[in-house]
């Protein structure tokens, strides 16, 4: 019997040829997407080039710095702004670290017993948490609470208000429900108590979910300044998160300085401060890349 062996390097002869229309569409598609990439990258490149440019050349900076200088960076990191900038940076690090660790730990712990189908008063407890997600009384009641607690103009007000995160709780709960009970049985037979069970068995299994929740906490708390605008006065400069510092730099409340260099180079200063403030985000951007590469499994769950 005659047997033909397919050459794996030869193109599939059975493949249907694409029509002209489809090819044009494909090219158009690629062109549009690349255009979108340019629209995203051009403003960023152009703006961040300003930080390295001499303010006299500001209108000529298109894609790369003109009149190379590190004046703006020196001004922010070592000059007059240095104490304010570093203080804000430190505040942001504290806020982000505390929110990320405490919030996710607390919510994951609460999600663990609630993930059991026969947890007592499960529906009631879930309702207790979900109500806070659905209804909030607005900004003033929480402002007054912070006022009563004496936490106004203090970074702890920003931290404490963000600890409770019900959507993460729901997220953890859904994941924990999927952990097979046999594993917990086995651990229990080996003599694990509840704390060991949670921290040595459940948390390591849930690491991908906890990791992505931590990632979103980090990005969210690093970038948000809405609650800082509420609780922290613009004059309490030692308590500003970095994003709030950037906002104040932008909204020209800070430019009432008599130095003509600063007035002329305010865009350069803004650019430098903004680039410095996104360095931590750049450090965790590889996680986004990994997340996108690994097939976006979380995205489909989170919807």
């Amino acid at each position: 019997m005659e047997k033909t062996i397919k050459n794996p390097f030869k193109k599939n002869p059975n493949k249907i040829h694409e029509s002209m229309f489809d090819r044009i569409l494909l090219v158009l598609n690629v062109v549009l997407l690349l255009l979108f990439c340019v629209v995203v990258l051009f403003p960023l490149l152009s703006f961040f080039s300003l930080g390295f440019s001499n303010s006299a050349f500001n209108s000529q900076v298109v894609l790369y710095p003109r009149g190379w200088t590190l004046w703006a960076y020196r001004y922010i990191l070592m000059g007059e702004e240095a104490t304010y900038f570093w203080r804000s940076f430190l505040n942001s690090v504290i806020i982000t670290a505390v929110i990320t660790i405490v919030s996710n730990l607390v919510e994951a712990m609460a999600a663990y017993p609630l993930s059991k189908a026969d947890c007592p008063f499960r529906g009631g407890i879930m309702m207790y948490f979900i109500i806070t997600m659905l209804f909030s009384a607005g900004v003033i009641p929480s402002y007054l609470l912070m006022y009563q607690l004496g936490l106004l103009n203090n970074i702890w007000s920003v931290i404490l208000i963000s600890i409770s995160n019900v959507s993460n709780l729901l997220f953890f709960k859904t994941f924990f429900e999927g952990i097979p009970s046999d594993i917990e049985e086995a651990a229990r037979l080996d003599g694990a108590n509840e704390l060991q069970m949670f921290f040595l068995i459940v948390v390591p299994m849930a690491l991908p979910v906890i990791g992505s929740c931590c990632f979103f906490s980090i990005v969210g708390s690093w970038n948000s300044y809405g609650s800082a605008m509420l609780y922290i006065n613009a004059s309490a400069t030692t308590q500003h998160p970095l994003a709030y510092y950037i906002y104040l730099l932008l909204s020209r409340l800070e430019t009432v300085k008599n130095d003509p260099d600063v007035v002329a180079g305010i865009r350069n200063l803004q650019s430098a401060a903004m680039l410095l403030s996104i360095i931590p985000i750049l450090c965790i951007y590889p996680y986004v890349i990994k997340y996108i590469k690994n097939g976006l499994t979380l995205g489909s769950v989170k919807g």
Partner: protein
Amino acid sequence: MQDHTYRSTDIAADAAEPVQTAPAAATAVKRPEDYGYWQTQFKRVKKYRRVLWFIIPAALFTLIFSYIPMLGVLFSFKGGDFNLLRGGVLENLFTGEWTFQNYLDIFVDISFLKGVLNTFIINIFKLLICFPLSIIVAVQLSELKSQTLSKIILIIICIPNFLSWAIVIGTWSGLLDSQGGVLNELLVMLNFIEPNYFTMSKDHLFKFFVILLAAWKGTGWGSIMFYAAIMAIDKSFYESATLEGANRLQKTWYLTIPAIMPTIALMLVLNISGFMAAGFEQIYTMMQVSEELEETQITLDTYIYTISIVNRTNIPFATALGVFNGLISLLLMLVGNAITTKTLHRSLW
């Protein structure tokens, strides 16, 4: 499904509870169904007594920072010269008179009505422009032949989502600055605009820039969800469509879009549930940058912020506004949830 897990874990974990096999034994030993509600709960509390305290920290944080502020609703029923920031809050609560006037005032407040109108206009345009844009980008990405290329593009277009609003607005206002902004210079050079025309501080362009910046920041990240949904579609559908002679546009329209319809519907409902908020950080920062627009471009969030935190004029009225806002949002959420549970069999939470 839930009932099944309940049974299996219950039987597996609680060895003291005998498994019922023969109906004859039913009279001798009580089944879980035979216990009363409180008895069942008590048994469960006993079973989970070592884990239940795990809930306490989260419950405490929720109590203090979410439930206690809800008591602040009471302040909205106070009128007259009631001042919250002088003396203790609780002391003040017992001094002023009780009134509904603050809630009635909402509906005759011109700034509030303007705020609602602006919030709705912005949200409707976001829904009409930003939302379809992220679907289109997701479809485009999925049409690329090389998955590596589509992922590289995705990584690039997601960058703005990870920048704070202050940075996004700073970047664009730097580019559009009438004194030396590059984009401004470029557009002037190409004779598209007159100098000093295309800036954020122009009243009639403000909403345009709100939408533009929202699209620039959110489209990439928004498309991820749809992209994941498209990737989950069975490839054999496309193969048979190709054999039937469908072109790319037809495959997109008759195959991709119907297949990701549940995701689209879910995101749409989520979007509409947030209709009372138009992005406080973005709009307030844009107002600060452009300096003069607080009167005409006011939205609900910025109005409440301005009258309560910035001006501190009428805090009971501002509280009433916040409560009203919260109630409308709650209503939208509940309606949205009812729609998704009915049509998609999926709860929003």
